[in-house]
């Protein structure tokens, strides 16, 4: 028997404030609440409070994980936080969480700056730490507060994104084969401008000029301080790269779509997932959609979906999964998971 990494447990956290389709429809005269639901599959999104950061959400998710009793703060010897909304420019938010969560000062901690692909990347890092013998219990936290980047009158993104966090325990286990992996990765930085918050970091500091608002041809309002998504380009990217990544992973592992119980994809929105399901040629039962209550929660969509499926009993017997994260960067990754 060899020591491998496995997901021991996971938990999520959604901030209590809810943004529903009725409230959005009142802001966007051309859209009704039912049209928003029909197109996105989303009924509500949860929104962080003004003084609540991604670090706060990650803290709550970690507490929810510890409350389940599978692992405790004392077990954790490495913290990885995936976020694109750190508490500070510096220091690293994962370092703050080590202290807040009462994790040993003997633990490593680092942030990963990735969005919708981030969970799969963090799993690969956690696996590497565990299987190299560098750590025994990695706390993988994913947390984002895109709502703070979104202009209230930009329906192209405000209808889709919700704030959330998830906490995943990746621990060492003795097993005949690796429960996590293999992986395939992909990056295409030429798509950087198609999903971006341009101002606020070193390249373009925030200024009066970056805060100037403009209205686009679809009637959406935003400034360079806000999140911008070129929806058509993101869809084209996803339709091209996600099936290619799935095929590359199946090729690498000698698996086929029939042998995968569930394809747990980044939960962008129902429309995107329906389009990808048709491309991947898999059944509706094989491709779970978990966006109705929380929308697109960036790097937390995959662990939140896994937690919801676990609670529904999907994993009462072990299943073979393919996880695929894809989005901002462009960045994407896929892996197999026995769970």
């Amino acid at each position, binding site marked *: 028997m060899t020591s491998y990494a496995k997901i021991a447990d996971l938990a999520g956290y959604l901030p209590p404030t809810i943004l529903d389709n009725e409230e959005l429809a009142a802001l966007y005269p051309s859209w009704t609440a039912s049209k928003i639901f029909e197109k996105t599959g989303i009924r509500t999104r949860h929104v962080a409070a003004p003084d609540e950061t991604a670090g706060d959400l990650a803290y709550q998710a970690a507490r929810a994980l510890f409350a389940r009793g599978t692992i405790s703060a004392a077990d954790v010897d490495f913290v990885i936080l995936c976020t694109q909304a750190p508490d500070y420019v510096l220091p690293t938010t994962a370092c703050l969480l080590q202290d807040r969560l009462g994790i040993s000062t003997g633990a490593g901690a680092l942030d990963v700056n990735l969005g919708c692909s981030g969970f799969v990347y963090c799993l690969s890092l956690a696996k590497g730490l565990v299987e190299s013998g560098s750590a025994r219990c990695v706390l993988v936290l994913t947390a984002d507060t895109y709502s703070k980047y979104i202009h209230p009158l930009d329906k192209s993104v405000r209808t889709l994104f919700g704030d959330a966090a998830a906490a995943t325990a990746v621990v060492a286990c003795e097993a005949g084969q690796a429960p996590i992996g293999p992986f395939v990765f992909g990056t295409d930085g030429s798509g950087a401008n198609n999903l971006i918050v341009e101002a606020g970091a070193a390249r373009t500091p925030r200024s009066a000029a970056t805060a100037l608002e403009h209205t686009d*041809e679809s009637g959406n309002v935003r400034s360079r301080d806000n999140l911008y998504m070129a929806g058509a380009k993101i869809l084209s990217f996803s*339709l091209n790269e996600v099936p290619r990544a799935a095929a590359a992973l199946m090729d690498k592992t000698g698996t086929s779509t029939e042998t995968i119980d569930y394809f747990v994809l980044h939960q962008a929105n129902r429309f995107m997932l329906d*389009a990808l399901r048709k491309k991947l040629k898999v059944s509706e039962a094989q491709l779970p959609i978990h966006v109705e209550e929380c929308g697109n929660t960036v790097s937390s969509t995959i662990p939140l979906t896994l937690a919801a499926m676990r609670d529904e009993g999907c994993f009462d017997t072990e299943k073979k999964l393919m996880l695929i994260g894809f989005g901002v960067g462009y960045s994407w990754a896929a892996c197999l998971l026995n769970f």
Partner: protein
Amino acid sequence: MTKFYEGMAEIFEVEPADITPQFELSNASADWDSLAIVSTIALVDDCFNVTLDGEALAACTTIGDIEALVAKAGKE
């Protein structure tokens, strides 16, 4: 073209019979907006296995223009 016309009718919330090559994409009841364009990219991908460019699609004014774009993309 039937599946494509049915899909376009759904996007524009009209009867399938209303969709013809002359159908105006920006009309009294609908905008040829980013959501309609994104929906059309997914539809064309599903019907013809062709991924259209959003900007080229945005420049289309009729269903016939989209069909011409699909035909051109299919040859490339």
